[in-house]
């Protein structure tokens, strides 16, 4: 393409990850021209990946460069495929969680989970463990048959779907989808009064610059990059686009993933209902706290997975494993650790192996305005300010994890099946520190353009449209108001499809 070309379409999707590709596919065979912009190519490219480098402060975090993948398909290129739905309580305003409460309910997303399931190559959109119990060859016996305190939350596992590989041909062959690779958006230009977007500027490594004009623009670059792009588009709006109220970049959320307790059983039990065999298991359960009990104890939503202790204890915390700038090196370390753990398990007699389980937490981070993405003074090779992440946790996360395991401990004690012991970092109820060597995130970036009806407390409205800018929309987990307990990808796809439907009504 000649330098300074102008590309025009009906909608322009910025970013070809799970959100962007899902939306683009939703427009295939429509009369509308869709421009899909991807900063990278079809394969990993070190030079492109380098654009994601950035600083981190606060709680120890993964290197930003390797926490996301920058090519067609996005981070699904190293996705593990874990999927589950949010719960009703995740959308509620909870008086004990500051800044909680979405302007939509789970029922608003439910129809889109049904559409998202096949895209992620999951099984039926069934989320009751009893359904999956019937599909299982082994008998599923819940640890706690009475689910009034602890219930069994179903996870489904994608193969995992690498969106870049799975949907490349679909996108490339679609007549009305126009994919541009190595097209990094570096600026968003609004009309004079900033009530709508006129065009975006695209740059590549060949030194070329192009302009993309469209009726609607959808930002789908992931939480850190969405915020970075809005904040750095500051020629017309000095604080950045959509940032009149200083919300863009704030409320960055992760899922805390941390080894939390040991459950020792009176009698060894394989607990097949909770077993995960990567690449084989289609669905399994994790222990979850009921909504009523969460409200009663005033805690965040979290789940607990069970892995034989003797196998799990050799598996280093994710924050230790994923420490390199090179995502492939990290992935190799992760797979190697997983293999070693599996080999260890094979060597241990079953009676010993199945006597004791590691309880591993996945929990939402409370929305926190100080946990945020800002712009660094250093610029990348395309002239964009780099992202700087300050990951900050609150005492509520730790209190919640502790209470979850006290609850599980009480339930297992009551059942007479065994006992639970908290890990060291949870032993002192007055200690709110997070051990940097074991406190991990799930590489789940959420919340930097959060959803709210009120522009003073959110960047996008309930339709994922940026407040005050009628044709700029945001797709994906950056719109999450709260993070829920479960991994974000399935909901990210579902919410993106909901946005897609909304944009269709605007054309």
């Amino acid at each position, binding site marked *: 393409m000649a330098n300074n070309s102008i590309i025009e379409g009906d909608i322009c999707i910025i970013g070809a990850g799970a959100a962007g590709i899902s939306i683009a596919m939703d427009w295939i065979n429509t009369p509308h021209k869709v421009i899909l912009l991807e900063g990278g190519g079809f394969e990993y490219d070190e030079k492109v990946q380098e654009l994601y480098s950035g600083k981190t402060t606060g709680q120890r975090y993964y290197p930003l460069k390797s926490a996301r993948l920058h090519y067609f398909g996005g981070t699904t290129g190293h996705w593990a495929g874990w999927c589950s739905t949010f719960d009703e309580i995740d959308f509620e305003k909870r008086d004990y969680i500051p800044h909680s409460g979405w302007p939509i309910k789970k029922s608003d997303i439910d129809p889109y989970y049904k559409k998202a399931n096949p895209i992620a190559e999951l099984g039926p959109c069934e989320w009751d463990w009893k359904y999956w119990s019937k599909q299982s060859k082994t008998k599923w016996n819940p640890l706690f048959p009475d689910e009034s305190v602890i219930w069994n939350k179903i996870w489904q596992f994608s193969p995992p779907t690498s969106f870049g590989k799975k949907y490349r041909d679909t996108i490339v062959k679609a007549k009305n989808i126009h994919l541009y690779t190595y097209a990094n958006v570096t600026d968003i230009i609004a009309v004079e009064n900033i009530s709508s977007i006129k065009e975006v500027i695209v740059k590549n490594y060949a030194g070329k610059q192009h302009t993309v004009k469209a009726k609607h623009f959808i930002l789908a670059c992931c939480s850190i990059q969405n915020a970075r792009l809005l904040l750095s588009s500051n020629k017309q709006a000095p604080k950045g686009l959509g940032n009149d109220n200083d919300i863009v970049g704030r409320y960055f959320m992760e899922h805390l993933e941390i080894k939390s*307790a040991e459950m*020792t*059983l*009176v009698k060894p039990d394989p607990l097949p209902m909770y077993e995960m065999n990567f690449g084989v298991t289609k669905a399994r359960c994790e222990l979850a706290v009921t909504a009523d009990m969460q409200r009663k104890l005033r805690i965040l939503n979290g789940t607990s997975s069970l892995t034989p202790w003797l196998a799990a204890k050799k598996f280093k915390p994710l924050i230790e494993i994923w420490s390199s700038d090179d995502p492939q090196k990290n992935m190799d370390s992760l797979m190697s650790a997983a293999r070693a753990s599996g080999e260890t398990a094979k060597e241990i007699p079953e009676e010993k192996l199945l006597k004791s389980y590691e309880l591993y937490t996945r929990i939402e981070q409370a929305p926190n305005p100080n946990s945020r993405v800002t712009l660094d003074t250093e610029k990348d090779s395309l002239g964009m300010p780099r992202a700087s992440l300050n990951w900050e946790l609150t005492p509520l996360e730790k209190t919640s994890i502790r209470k979850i*395991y*006290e609850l599980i*401990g*009480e*339930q297992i*004690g*009551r059942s*007479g099946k*065994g*006992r*639970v*012991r*908290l*890990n*060291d970092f*949870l*032993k002192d*109820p007055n200690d709110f520190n997070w051990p940097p060597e074991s406190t991990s995130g799930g590489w789940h970036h959420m919340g930097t353009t959060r959803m709210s009806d009120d522009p003073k407390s959110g960047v996008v409205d309930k339709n994922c449209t940026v407040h005050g800018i009628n044709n700029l929309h945001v797709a994906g987990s950056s719109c999450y108001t709260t993070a829920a307990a479960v991994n974000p990808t399935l909901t990210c796809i579902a919410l993106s499809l909901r946005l897609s439907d909304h944009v269709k009504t605007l054309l």
Partner: protein
Amino acid sequence: MKRRHFIFYTVISTAAVSIPFLNCSSPDPELDKKLAMPETLAQTYDEKTIMEIGQAYGKTYPDEYSISDLEKLLTKTETGKSIAGSESTEMINSTLNAMVKKDFQTGDTVVLNGWILSKTEARQCALFTLIKTK
């Protein structure tokens, strides 16, 4: 009987042998021997762990950490009727197990060095530890 359980119950028996030394602080050493059997914990953990729990209980509740006090606390049942040394081991175990279950139901639990336990069984561990170490 698994080896671990055997060792544990042997320890209890050994403690019984040393009861004459405990007479000054224990009104009923035979009863103490029966009380100091946290049945579920004995099937779950080894003796070292039981004693670790017992010591942690002593640190957290120093006012209760004597054989006579623990005996009093453990023999007091919900109905007001005291457990007597003349009762069989099975009967006493059954009563204490019911108390343990009730503790978990009512939230009468303690967190000792990370272990989430019923108060009754934690006291049993403490009693066991005292008997074993005296």
